[in-house]
């Protein structure tokens, strides 16, 4: 090794401290069990290997320590055998049996069987030898202790407890052997195969096989042999009584630290009582001799009826007592009858647990703050260390009680599976294990279990994080207590012992002090022995023993405690006990010390004990139930596995208080996986856990993302829902879901969840799924619009807004979500294609439903469908099927919104146009208008032109305006006569009007769309104004005051100016982008451009056919009476639809709406014949004449006054239309005649005289 410079110890510690200066921010809230990427456990327990070093201890107890160590080893082997048997899976079922003797390959099969089963049978053999060796070893030990001379001596508590553990081991091994039928089957298959192959020739192996089969075959073999052996020992029941009493004492004073210890104690009672109850000595007699207390035992059996034996195998300790020969039910009133319900009602217990949990947490956090705030290192006062140690112990005891509550509830449930009678929703066909887990828990029990498990793991995490500080504090505390006790408390008794020549007592106390006294270098030991009478100078008494953060070694502690116990033990067995030799107050001191130090071994291995106290891994294992299915099940489906049942309950019950307990339930898999690898050491078990986790995890993330989506959708929809609507509904008694806050915040912050050694970024997984889901919601919204008519666009717009809000809410928690704009474009197939699905469908609807079927009504400014007429409804694709979450979030919200949006169903009005303009955007509107112009052009050139040509032929060549003298009826009849052919023209009322209506609707659509677009743009401009330095002019009396006010305002809002800010702060590119953006925001369409005008111009281009204008007027100025121009035709058409119709028929405007008039007036205006039309129109003339002469007659069946009334209304309508059109036409075209009054100058007529005079 390189001779590096002497690195002092201080430097090393310094280096480690420096490590902690590196900032390690981790913003993830910890709602999972303690994440341990690297597990580092320090275990200095020597299991008595170092006993020879402590020569000063009393040799007798040293020797007991050796045996104690040996027994611990045997207990470990016992556990391995138990594991081996518990995890045994029957292989013989899988082995192909040699059906008949002469089957050719049966030799091969058998060889294979032998080869496969050989190692397993070897283990069984080893187990048999172990069992026998353990029994004999145990009986020798009991025999040694029952030796009359030994009776007088003292047996330490720890040793009795170890004997108890041994008894428990026997019980466990025996029950496992009874339970596992597959072991016997496999062994018999092996033996048959082996005998067939005569491979075991020598007698010895045959004999062995014989023993083994006998050993495996007989039930309760171990128990019986043990009982037989014990009954040979005279007085064995005394020792067992001692074991029972010490266990009872420990149980009653809750001097156990882990749930398995607690359950072990109760199992020891049962089995020991069974062993004791033989013919030589029986329980009743011992009870009379007050050696054991049946009443107390009875009460204990009642409080803890079912305890886990091993894994998912349960046992009722009292069943042992029931099986004992001299069992009298009368002696056991309480536990004789088995109670209906589990002794732990978890649901009530959870309230108490919650209180304890909160108290403990507050205390722990105070300590934590003190530790963090005050000096990191440096010795703490004894009081602080004591408080921390007590806190740690209290924590362990709390955890132990909670865990035992959970484990006992589960074990009771496993032993009492439900049945269809008690639990209604348990089907007849439910399997055994299903009835034990899936249907065996009410929802209250499940939520209580979930909560307790979360509290256990949460507290374990908090304590686990503190184990370094706690470790040091505990060690300091133990050292201080030990040294104070040994060096100070024992000084007086030792002195007195020497003074009164009690050398035995003195010897023990001296050896205690020698074993573990840690003298500070200067402190001598001699003055004890000095015979000096003088009272020892006070100062030595209170000398402060130096404090060191080091604990006694396990053996040292054991020796001290055992020797102290020997002082206290009053079992004299005749001789004067040492107890009387000590004065009372020293006794009390020793007793307190013993009681306090009982938990020290557990506390000194704090992290291991903590793990044992929170041992919930057995909740997953189900070998016992698998065995019972006799091969029908290789492994149970996930919905029968308890961890998944709990996790699934949280996900489905959607109980907000449980959301944050989700990861704790998944952590049960971690425990199971860890246990099967470290303790069971079985790969196949781990693989099964892993397989189940794979399945469960997919479902977990799937259901989680689903509920996250549903929650946020409901939230956004409820925020979006009109408040008055909601309260109206509640008045009517139907309430609409308002989502309860589901607290997904912390869950979605999880970036590294530890699951079976893998680290999972939950946020990323949920983000991926939510991205897909959002895309789907938008897609569903669009396809629903595609399956509906144009009126559904308002709901689509609402859905888009709601989804945008939902996206905003979610992206707070899921920053990985793609921008809403991109999602929308993708759903709208508008990414590479210029026009989205919405645009295409809007146009499709326009073409096939809106133009032909809708009638416009100016007063309501709406298009309505005329019900009666069988307009061909275009066939549309099927509406999309999806869960409520993909629409408005929940059933009631869906119903509410469909009601709201059904109001927009019947008509197409301003709200629809606003939505169209918002959803289509400039590009969409441009393409729709372009298409509409084409439609208009085709309408004009084809249907309208043909019909016009026919009608022009039908019209009279000349149609004057009859003079007033004829009277209005006369005028009417004149027109009636002239236009007879036109009126009779069949197609006029049907196809021609339809063509005109379509043209009118198209023009109207463009007009209204532009208005809506204008409004949208104005709102945008106003929204952008404050950020573009456009400030409304403040009111000011004097103009110059206004100037200063504006200056101040501009100065005040200068920071809001986006473009300037970016100019100042951003880089060049960003500044350029900002400028462009600013420009684009300012320059909107409505600020200076008009769409409608250009559309009129484009339609006018289509009206270039001479048909419309006719040849040049003969008189060089204009046609007057000749029906050549279009406006004449339109007057005729107007005359047709002005004639009032019989009540039974349907009026024209009801069928075609005002689109008809709009079409006609547009063409007239575009052809510039508007003035002539106004002047020469037939109906106007009738009306003018009738208004003057006021006649009202029936002319050819037409009621004149009714007709005039209709004419008046249509005239008003035409005027409106013309005013709109002229406003648009006049403002635009510079060269059109409509622009300014195109005045043709005619020379004034010259007077003849003048003309001749020239």
């Amino acid at each position, binding site marked *: 090794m390189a001779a590096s410079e*002497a690195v002092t110890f201080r430097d090393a510690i310094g280096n480690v401290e420096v*490590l902690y200066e590196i900032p390690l921010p981790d913003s993830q809230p910890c709602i999972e069990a303690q994440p341990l990427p690297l597990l580092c456990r320090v275990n200095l327990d020597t299991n008595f290997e170092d006993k020879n070093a402590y020569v000063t201890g009393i040799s007798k107890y040293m020797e007991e320590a050796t045996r104690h160590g040996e027994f611990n080893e045997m207990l470990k082997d016992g556990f391995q055998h138990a594991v081996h048997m518990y995890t045994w899976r029957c292989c013989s079922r899988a082995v192909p049996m040699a059906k008949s003797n002469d089957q050719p390959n049966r030799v091969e099969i058998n060889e294979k069987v032998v080869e496969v089963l050989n190692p397993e049978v070897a283990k069984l053999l080893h187990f048999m030898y172990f069992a026998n060796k353990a029994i004999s070893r145990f009986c020798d030990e009991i025999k040694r202790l029952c030796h009359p001379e030994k009776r007088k001596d003292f047996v330490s508590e720890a040793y009795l407890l170890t004997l108890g553990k041994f008894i428990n081991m026997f019980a466990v091994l025996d029950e496992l052997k009874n339970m596992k039928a597959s072991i016997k089957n496999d062994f018999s298959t092996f033996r048959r195969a082996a005998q067939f192959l005569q491979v075991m020739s020598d007698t010895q192996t045959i004999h062995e096989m014989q023993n083994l089969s006998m050993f495996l075959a007989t039930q309760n073999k171990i128990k019986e042999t043990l009982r037989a052996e014990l009954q040979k020992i005279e007085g064995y029941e005394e020792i067992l009584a001692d074991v029972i009493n010490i266990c009872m004492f420990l149980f009653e004073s809750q001097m156990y630290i882990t749930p398995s210890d607690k359950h072990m104690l109760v199992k020891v009672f049962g089995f020991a009582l069974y062993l004791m109850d033989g013919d030589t000595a029986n329980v009743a007699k011992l009870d009379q001799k007050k050696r054991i207390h049946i009443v107390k035992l009875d009460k204990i059996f009642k409080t803890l009826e079912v305890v886990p034996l091993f894994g998912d195998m349960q046992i009722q300790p009292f069943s042992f007592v029931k099986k004992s020969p001299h069992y009298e039910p009368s002696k056991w009133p309480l536990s004789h009858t088995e109670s209906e319900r589990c002794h732990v009602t978890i649901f009530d217990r959870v309230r108490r647990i919650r209180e304890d949990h909160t108290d403990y947490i507050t205390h722990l956090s105070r300590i934590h703050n003190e530790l963090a705030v005050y000096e990191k290192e440096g010795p703490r006062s004894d009081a602080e260390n004591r408080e921390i140690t007590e806190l740690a112990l209290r924590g362990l005891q709390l955890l132990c009680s909670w865990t035992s509550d959970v484990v006992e509830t589960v074990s009771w449930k496993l032993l009492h599976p439900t049945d269809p009678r008690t639990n209604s929703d348990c089907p007849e066909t439910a399997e055994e294990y299903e009835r034990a887990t899936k249907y065996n828990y009410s929802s209250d029990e499940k939520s209580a279990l979930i909560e307790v498990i979360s509290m256990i793991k949460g507290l374990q995490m908090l304590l686990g994080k503190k184990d370094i500080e706690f470790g040091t504090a505990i060690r300091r505390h133990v050292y201080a207590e030990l040294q104070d006790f040994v060096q100070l408390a024992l000084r007086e008794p030792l002195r007195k012992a020497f003074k009164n020549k009690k050398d035995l007592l003195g010897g023990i106390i001296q050896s205690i002090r020698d074993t573990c006294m840690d003298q500070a270098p200067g402190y001598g030991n001699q003055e004890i022995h000095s015979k000096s009478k003088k009272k020892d100078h006070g100062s030595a008494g209170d000398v402060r023993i130096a404090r060191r953060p080091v604990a006694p070694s396990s053996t040292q502690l054991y020796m001290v405690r055992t020797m102290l116990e020997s002082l206290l033990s009053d079992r004299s067995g005749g001789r004067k006990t040492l107890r009387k030799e000590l004065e009372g107050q020293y006794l009390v001191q020793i007793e307190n010390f013993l009681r306090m130090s009982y938990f020290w071994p557990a506390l000194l291995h704090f992290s291991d004990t903590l793990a044992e106290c929170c041992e919930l891994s057995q909740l997953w294992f189900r070998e016992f139930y698998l065995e019972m299915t006799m091969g029908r099940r290789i492994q149970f489906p996930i919905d029968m596995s308890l961890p998944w049942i709990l996790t699934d309950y949280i996900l489905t019950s959607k109980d907000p208080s449980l959301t944050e307990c989700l990861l704790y339930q998944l952590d049960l898999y971690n425990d199971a996986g860890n246990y099967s690898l470290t303790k069971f050491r079985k790969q196949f078990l781990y693989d099964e856990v892993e397989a189940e986790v794979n399945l469960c995890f997919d479902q977990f993330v799937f259901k989680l993302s689903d509920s996250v989506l549903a929650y946020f959708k409901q939230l956004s929809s409820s925020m979006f829902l009109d408040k008055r609507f909601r309260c109206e509904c509640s008045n009517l008694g139907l309430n609409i879901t308002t989502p309860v806050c589901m607290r997904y915040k912390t869950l979605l912050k999880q970036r590294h969840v530890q699951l079976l050694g893998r680290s999972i970024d939950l946020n990323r997984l949920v983000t991926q799924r939510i991205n897909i889901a959002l895309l789907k919601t938008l897609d569903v919204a669009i396809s629903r619009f595609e399956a509906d008519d144009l009126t559904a666009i308002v709901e689509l717009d609402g859905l888009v807004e709601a989804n945008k809000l939902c996206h905003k809410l979610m992206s707070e928690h899921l920053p990985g979500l793609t921008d809403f704009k991109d999602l929308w474009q993708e759903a709208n197939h508008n990414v590479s294609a210029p026009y989205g699905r919405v645009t295409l469908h809007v146009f499709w609807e326009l073409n096939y439903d809106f133009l032909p079927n809708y009638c416009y009504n100016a007063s309501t400014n709406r298009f309505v469908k005329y019900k009666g007429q069988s307009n061909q409804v275009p066939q549309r694709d099927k509406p999309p099927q999806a869960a409520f979450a993909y629409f408005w979030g929940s059933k009631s919200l869906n119903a509410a919104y469909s009601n709201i949006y059904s109001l927009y169903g019947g008509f197409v009005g301003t709200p629809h146009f606003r939505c169209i303009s918002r959803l289509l*955007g400039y*590009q969409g509107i*441009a393409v729709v208008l372009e298409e509409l112009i084409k439609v208009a052009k085709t309408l004009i050139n084809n249907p309208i032109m043909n019909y016009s040509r026919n009608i022009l032929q039908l019209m009279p060549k000349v149609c004057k305006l009859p003079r007033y003298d004829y009277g209005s009826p006369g005028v009417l009849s004149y027109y009636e006569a002239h236009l007879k052919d036109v009126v009779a023209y069949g197609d006029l009322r049907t196809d021609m009007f339809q063509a005109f209506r379509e043209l009118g609707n198209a023009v109207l659509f463009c007009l209204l769309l532009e208005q809506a677009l204008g409004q949208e743009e104005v709102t945008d401009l106003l929204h952008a104004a404050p950020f573009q330095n456009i400030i409304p002019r403040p009111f000011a009396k004097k103009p110059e005051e206004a100037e200063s006010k504006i200056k101040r305002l501009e100065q005040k809002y200068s920071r809001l100016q986006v473009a300037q800010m970016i100019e100042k702060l951003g880089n060049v590119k960003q500044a350029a*982008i900002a400028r462009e*953006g600013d420009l684009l925001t300012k320059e909107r369409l409505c600020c200076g451009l008009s769409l409608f005008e*250009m*559309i009129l111009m484009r339609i006018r281009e289509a009206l270039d056919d001479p048909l419309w204008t006719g040849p040049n007027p003969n008189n060089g100025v204009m046609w007057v009476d000749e029906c050549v121009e279009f406006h004449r035709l339109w007057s005729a058409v107007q005359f047709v639809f002005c004639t009032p119709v019989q009540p039974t028929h349907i009026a024209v405007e009801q069928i075609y709406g005002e689109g008809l008039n709009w079409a006609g007036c547009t063409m007239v205006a575009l052809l510039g014949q508007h003035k002539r039309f106004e002047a020469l129109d037939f109906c106007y003339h009738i009306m003018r004449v009738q208004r003057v002469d006021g006649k009202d007659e029936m002319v050819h069946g037409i009621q004149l006054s009714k007709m005039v009334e209709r004419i008046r209304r249509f005239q008003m309508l035409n005027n409106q239309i013309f005013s709109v059109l002229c406003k648009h036409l006049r403002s635009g075209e510079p060269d059109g005649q409509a622009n300014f009054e195109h005045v043709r100058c005619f020379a004034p007529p010259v007077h003849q005289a*003048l003309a001749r005079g020239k």
Partner: protein
Amino acid sequence: MSMIMDTGSSDLRSLIETEIPEGRMNLESSYANLERVAAYCEANYLQATDKKAAFEETKRYTVQSLASVAYQINTLASSLLQTLELQTDKIGNMESQVNNIAQIIDIHKEKVARREIGVLTANKVVQRQHKIITPAHQERPQRYQRTPIDYSALDDLGHGVKLTSQ
């Protein structure tokens, strides 16, 4: 704000190419060494005659290895953190560039859309009627003074006869 790479501590490339692999290599080598040292100490203690000296030597080794491991972990950890830092800055930078590009594309698309709809629009001639505002300076109203009517003022209007001008 142009991102200047803080060349004070080594830049990203050198971090990734040299410092981190080096740190890792140190740790791996110390891992191997420590194993050998542990084995050596164990053997040494077993067969050493002077247990005390062997134990002291083991102690020295422990201290030294603890210090070295702590130090190596420290360096590797800080260089890793620094790499992450620089990486995040780099990506932040890239992100802003992409955002710029996205905005440029959006602007371009908007322009295309406006050009398309522009084709369909005509200039709206909006007559700018000025709002009626009080004239800056009020001219004083003139006093009324009477003038007699001249009846023959309009004789030359309304007819084609050329009068010889009086």
